[in-house]
């Protein structure tokens, strides 16, 4: 059965007819040609399809497109236009979190990356709003993203699989953007003067 729905993705409005059983992920990828959300498992177990849905991080493979008529979606391709980002979505501009991934080598094959990026942005926002996690000691106390330690960051990002194992860089990148101190024993953002010198 087909139904007509409207989705706004990375600032662009789409009217689209979908079979009612189409997942939001398949609607994005197959019907709207928005391939910035990736499919790693289609079962809600890897996080690679994560987007920001109405501002919250959300797995798009576990929900039907028809349930999101009128919703606003931001994928990794659009996060630079968000608050805190460069404010535009030019193909070269990055959100600070993406910049930090770049600087800390938080990726290899890049397949999990769009999901990691959306998840991390959503997660920091949740923290900012005071949401506790499974490892938060004091549930009454408000959470400050800058105070998220490694365990907190890890727990809150534990839905995103990276088979390339770029986890160290991912944690470093998130901690930098959260405004916290770098991980123990880890340098600040690695210096990159070498390449400049070569120019």
């Amino acid at each position, binding site marked *: 059965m087909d139904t007509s729905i409207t989705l706004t993705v990375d600032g662009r409005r789409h009217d689209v007819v979908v079979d009612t059983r189409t997942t939001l992920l398949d609607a994005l990828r197959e019907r709207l040609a928005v391939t910035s959300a990736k499919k790693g498992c289609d079962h809600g177990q890897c996080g690679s399809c994560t987007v920001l849905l109405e501002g919250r991080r959300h797995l798009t493979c576990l929900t039907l497109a028809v349930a999101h008529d009128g919703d606003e979606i931001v994928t990794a391709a659009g996060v630079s236009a968000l608050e805190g980002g460069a404010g535009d979505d030019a193909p070269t501009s990055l959100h600070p979190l993406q910049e930090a991934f770049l600087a800390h080598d938080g990726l290899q094959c890049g397949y999990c990356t769009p999901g990691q990026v959306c998840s991390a942005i959503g997660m920091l926002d949740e923290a900012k709003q005071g949401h506790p996690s499974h490892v938060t000691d004091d549930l009454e106390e408000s959470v400050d993203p800058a105070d998220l330690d490694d365990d907190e960051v890890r727990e809150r990002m534990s839905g995103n699989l990276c088979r390339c194992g770029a986890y*160290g860089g991912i944690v470093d990148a998130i901690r930098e953007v959260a405004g916290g101190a770098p991980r123990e024993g880890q340098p600040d953002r690695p210096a990159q003067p070498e390449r400049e010198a070569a*120019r």
Partner: protein
Amino acid sequence: MTTRLVGQKVPRVEDQRFLRGGGKYVDDVLVGATTLHAAVLRSPHAHARVVEIDVEDVLDVEGVHLVWTYEDLADAAVMPATMAEPLPLLIPHPALTHGRTQYALAKDEVNYVGEAVAFVVASDRYVAEDALARIRVTYDFLPPVVGVDAARAATNLVHDDVPGNVGARLEQTVGDAPAAIAAAPHRLALDLTVERSACMPLEGRGTVARWDPDSGRLTMWTSTQTASGVRAAVAVKLGLDLGQVDVLTPDTGGGFGVKINHPWPEELLVPMAAKVLGRPVKFTEDRREHFISSAHERGQVQHVEVGFDDDGRLLGLDVEFWHDHGAYTPYGLIVPIITSTQLLGPYKPGAYRVVFESLYTNTVMVTPYRGAGRPQGVYAMERTMDAIAAYLGKDRTEVRAVNFIQPDEFPYDHQMVFQDGRPLVYDSGDYPQSLEKIKALVGWDEFTAVRDAARAEGRTVGIGLACYVEGTGVGPYEGAHVHVETSGKVKVATGLTTQGQGHATVFAQLVADELGCRFEDVEVVTGDTRRMPYSVGTFASRAAVMSGSAIHLAAKRAKEKALRIAADALEADEGDLEIVDGIVSVRGAPGSSISLGTVAVLSNPLRYAFDEASKAATQFTVGDPGRPPVAEDDEPGLEGKDFYSPERSTFASGMHAVIVETDPETCEIRILKYAVVHDCGHLLNPMIVEGQVHGGVAQGIGGALYERMEYDESGQLLNASFMDFLMPYVTEVPDGIDIDHLETPSPLNPLGIKGAGEAGVIPSAAVFASAIEDAEGFPITAMPISPSDLFALRQQHAAGASGAPDPSRPSDPSDQEDR
């Protein structure tokens, strides 16, 4: 002079694209309504005869375009005869006396759950799956063979015509190991097992094909580690000329070995369907399909006998192992051969005998997974080293040190044959220095105090160590093409594919350094057979060594040509020229210079100008009228092309150490410290090498503590999902991994490099077994080890302490004979 980029932590140029979700993986290609989608009906049974397949109802489903079974593949009116034959046996070996491969669609029999039985193409994947549900297959069940023990018992056979389920038996001997063991002052025997795991890249397999009837060409995108291999196989199987087939692999969402297999059934069925239907066809497997129908690795049962002297020196080593290769053997004996040779690690036993049987089971096939047989070999050897140390009451590092090949013994010839058919000769290394470094890094000598302090708090900790040597950069060759465009941009192509190793960055570093152009001006293309048709593939930690060397050589050629042309133009001596940031100038005379782009213009004598710059190369402007415009031994264009083909592999090495804490109640195993000393020769980009090591260690932790393919006795894979097959998430990897590098250059290639891709995962099972054994005080002989496994072992040893013989404890084989 500019700073050299090689050796620097140059940030990766591919990352921007990836971060914005702009990576072009196969499923991101040809998205749109014109593309049709394929789905495959797979066997639900591990072993059965296919009696009948009824597809009658399928074409009634709206949106279904095609359904094929083996019968269709054998239909000469539609298919080339080659489509009805079994898939290629990619790597034949004389010892593989009973090699078997599957058909693109099952013929008469299925041999594992997941084997392709029928193929449907429809308007989208949803419809294609609806159609699969309408296919009715009648099976006659056969008894399944699951696991090494069942395969060895051979009560049932996987293939009727393979006696004993033995695909191959291979023995290599150096000296007389059994005699050396018999004569040795001390002897031990160990029985060890390693379970199955799998690569599990986040992007599964996928193939898209488009047939262009006007030009008679097939364009195919596929998620592979060898675009050129797929191209050759597809051309042969589809009955096309090689020149009609282009294979492209833009970005790959991880490979780790599994994607070196080719052609998958779908890599033939998809292009064939695209040709027949005249529409683009795409197949993207789902996660369950990846689990049950791609490939696994690791499963082995091993028996080690060793004879040694009072210092722990290996006098004789006799290893027998049984390798579960699943239902088919397309990748030959590569994995068990690597186990049997790389087992030797940094050591030199007095005499060595190794024999393996490669066995059929009714499970998905076994082909290389990052490490490719080395983790099992290292596990066998390092368990043996620990057992010797325990027996002699010596420090584990001392026993290893007395067995090391010494730095002045290179090249060291093991007198065996390696996986590439070449002699097993180590080119360089410094194992004693590595040992010193790892001891310092992990705090080996201070550990007794750490243990005592922990004990005082009621905590149990243990330390482990494991050493490995890894043959990397296997041949036969790779090639590269470096082309300077008239814009000054430098286009580089090499044929192998990229799965996240940062090739676009590392290879650009090499070109910028050698040619003297700007790093930013270099663009690297991998895995596109239109740009570089001659290639082998990305496996065995070979990309940097093979393609890196070829690119270096090709850039050198382009530079030589640039200097020759520039010398003419600048009326200078070639020897006085230098190229910096893409400008060729006379050293010390900065006014006298010419850009590489202009040199490219001059390299191609023109009749027709197409822009301002190209006017400089037209016939009334340049050239000596008395000479041909292109000299006899020259070619137009500013290009360099070269190939690198080494005599044999180069051997990287390293040592890992880990400190673990085991929970007295829950048996949880926590990693307190993980240290790596790694020697891959000169480092091209330390950041990328460290990323590779980190990623390998993460996978190694998975393999040692979590990952196990759970087949039941009927051959059903019980944990075929990310929920049930446990891989490390960010919560399972240690906070920091301490890495120290040693750079022992390889004499075999111009850059002095060795491969780095697999190292991180190789010693994991061994190093964790060592540390857990140290913490618990009883032998660990089976990996991976979960908390429940550890719990069972504690129970068993608590009972064993009351007098019963301990079957898992290494034993003196001569004791057994006496009994």
